[in-house]
């Protein structure tokens, strides 16, 4: 996908671009052959990122709003890359738990930041894939030449969550507003019942099944026969790797302290497999002996925000800023989880094979795997599905199993089990960290180091992406 001929031949070139795209071709510096339409596009690069440490809900960020946290992450990014008064092409971010007053959350954060007030912004919402989708959407605009620079991001607060009034009270209030006469108003008010005064708090339940995300995953975990030990080991490694990354200074240029935190407050550097083994299951308890999911191998509710600076190569060069990695491509998938055909969080198991096929790649062609740890069981179920012959044949349409990954390349600097998972902020955390790792790795076997991002999301969705080192 990169201009200078990447690694990957395209199996099915798209039709050659029509006349009139010569400007794009010229910009891409590649006129000699038509090739795939995307080969005419310029590259979108990751310049860097900034996030605030993630805090367990009810902790250091309890009183901070989504707008506060997004602005804090944004201001850290602005300071790091000297973007004061800069008019950025576009800023996109979002939150999953969102107050109705925050309809323009990202634009308001931009207005409260040191960016030029002439920077446009929009909100995006795709559950836990929000952050990664902002990266992909903005990267596409950069590739198309619509914008030269962009900031992608996401934020979530489970502490400062919106509370809605009950449906009964809401209807009464709306009718009351429409009622013209006193008698009509009284008539409307008389419909109010004490139970209507109970507020309606958000939860992680799926609207169509009534099951929480954890209960859904418990079904999937049991289906793929993922053991308690394997889940605890993944959680243990997440904490161990994240703690080591902090100790090595990996986050020094990826993170700005906020509200007294300089590390993710969920991180337990001193946890052990023995400690994790003592925790009682919290999900899937009706499954009896098969209940394996604990608070230790599930991600807790978290508050936090992240941002990623994206740019064209020309813009990065003109501003004398680093170019860490390119956003090669992305893919979204969704599964029919409602009646149990697939697990709620299994969409990436389909998205990744499709994306890799488009690029003629296999799992062996990657140096880093960033698989979001909603639950340890999610990661392990996805890997198990890829290693399963029957799943590969019947569900993915392959000759056999999709493949397996080298576990030493998985979430090498920790992931959501240790860092926490403020829903929309996770994509930005992963993309910024991965871009930095890829850049440090540089070339592998004569090709740029390559990383895969996989994020599952509520509603049976998933978004995945490929990044390559620069």
């Amino acid at each position, binding site marked *: 996908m990169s201009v200078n001929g990447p690694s990957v031949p395209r199996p099915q070139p798209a039709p050659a671009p029509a006349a009139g795209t010569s400007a794009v071709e010229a910009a891409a510096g590649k006129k000699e052959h038509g090739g795939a339409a995307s080969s005419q596009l310029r590259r979108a690069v990751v310049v860097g990122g900034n996030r605030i440490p993630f805090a367990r809900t009810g902790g250091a960020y309890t009183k901070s709003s989504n707008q506060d946290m997004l602005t804090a992450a944004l201001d850290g990014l602005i300071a790091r890359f000297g973007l004061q008064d800069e008019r950025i092409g576009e800023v996109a971010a979002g939150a999953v738990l969102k107050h109705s007053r925050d309809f323009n959350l990202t634009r308001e954060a931009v*207005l409260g930041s040191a960016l030029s*007030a002439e920077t446009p912004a929009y909100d995006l919402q795709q559950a836990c894939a929000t952050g990664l989708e902002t990266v992909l959407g903005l990267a596409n605009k950069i590739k198309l030449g619509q914008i030269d620079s962009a900031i992608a991001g996401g934020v979530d607060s489970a502490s400062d969550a919106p509370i809605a009034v009950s449906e009964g009270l809401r209807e009464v209030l709306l009718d009351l507003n429409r009622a013209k006469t006193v008698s009509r108003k009284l008539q409307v008010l008389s419909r109010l019942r004490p139970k209507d005064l109970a507020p309606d708090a958000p939860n992680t339940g799926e609207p169509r099944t009534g099951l929480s995300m954890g209960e859904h995953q418990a079904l999937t975990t049991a289906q793929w026969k993922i053991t308690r030990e394997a889940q605890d080991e993944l959680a243990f490694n997440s904490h161990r790797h994240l703690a080591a990354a902090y100790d090595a200074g990996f986050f020094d240029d990826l993170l700005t302290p906020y509200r*007294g935190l300089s590390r993710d407050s969920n991180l337990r550097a001193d946890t052990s497999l023995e400690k994790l083994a003592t925790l009682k299951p919290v999900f899937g308890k009706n499954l009896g002996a098969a209940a394996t999911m604990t608070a230790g191998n599930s991600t807790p509710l978290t508050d936090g925000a992240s941002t990623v600076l994206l740019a064209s190569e020309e813009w990065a060069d003109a501003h004398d800023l680093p170019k860490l990695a390119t956003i090669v491509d992305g893919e979204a998938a969704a599964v029919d989880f409602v009646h149990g055909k697939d697990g709620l969080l299994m969409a990436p198991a389909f998205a990744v094979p499709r994306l890799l096929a488009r690029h003629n790649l296999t799992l062996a062609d990657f140096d880093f795997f960033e698989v979001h740890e909603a639950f340890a069981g999610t990661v392990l179920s996805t890997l198990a599905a890829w290693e399963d012959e029957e799943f590969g044949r019947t569900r993915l349409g392959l000759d056999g199993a999709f493949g397996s990954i080298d576990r030493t390349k998985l979430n090498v600097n920790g992931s959501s089990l240790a860092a926490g998972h403020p829903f929309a902020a996770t994509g930005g955390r992963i993309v910024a960290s991965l871009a930095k790792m890829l850049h440090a790795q540089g070339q592998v076997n004569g090709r740029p180091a390559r990383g895969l991002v996989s994020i599952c999301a509520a509603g049976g969705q998933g978004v995945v992406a490929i990044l390559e080192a620069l």
Partner: protein
Amino acid sequence: MSGSQTVILGEMPSLSKLYVNAAAAAARRRVLGTHGGTELPAYTHEVRGVKADVANLTAYQHLIGESASDVLPAGFIHALAFPLAMSVMNRDDFPLPLLGMIHLSNKVVQSAPVLFTQALDIRAQVENLRGHRAGTQLDVVAEVRAAGREEVRWRGVSTYLAKGVFLPGIDKPSVPVTPPPPFSVPDPTALWQLGVDTGRAYAAVSGDFNPIHLSVLTAKALGMRRSLAHGMYLASRALADVGAVRGDSFRWDVAFEAPVFLPARVALDISTVQADGGAWQRSGYVAWNPLSGRRHFSGSVAALP
């Protein structure tokens, strides 16, 4: 802050006690008369190692309209230093009655950002006792440094008027004040709706429970027809409205005119001056009553030279 003796207080004085003391002093003066002093106390009060309360900071930022960053808003630092400034004016050798003093103007120089995690040394003193056509005025100067450091990060000068108090030996300004040009109302850039609880809300985050701001009854007890908005609340909101363009260091001035009686609608105009290259130089602001056209306050936020 030279030429005066420093009194180091063990902790930030309690504002509520200071207000009670001030009320007692006012009663004593009514009975015994003033103590006759015509000089300001040559004492600097200092508290070391002051830290902001983060929950209070967040509540302040949300009320004023600042994003809840880790940097203390300049108006928050004023509120943080205010009890110490009050303690100097509450000294027995302070020649003016503290209660009922009118805040005429305020000038702040924020030289460097102050983070909520930093321990601060705060000093306050009074100076520049001088006449005013309506009484006697003085400056209360507060300085904030990072604990143990010499560099001043924040310096505020608050000018107060003791209305109707004329001290022997202190003349009214000899130069007749030329009346300011009549205020021509500009087009507003913002309109604030201030509820009747505005004073109480600011008192809760600033700690300044001056009765004239709390309720109609407490305000009437002190001779006001209704409660009124804190001047520093209004000026701090204007500062927040200027926004992040001001950066981390700036000069922030405000001059107060007609008080804002609550509830109120306040019209505001902010006009920005840019340098030739487009860099922000200064934002002037003026606020007025949209019904009467009376000016409530005006001032500016400007880049430091």
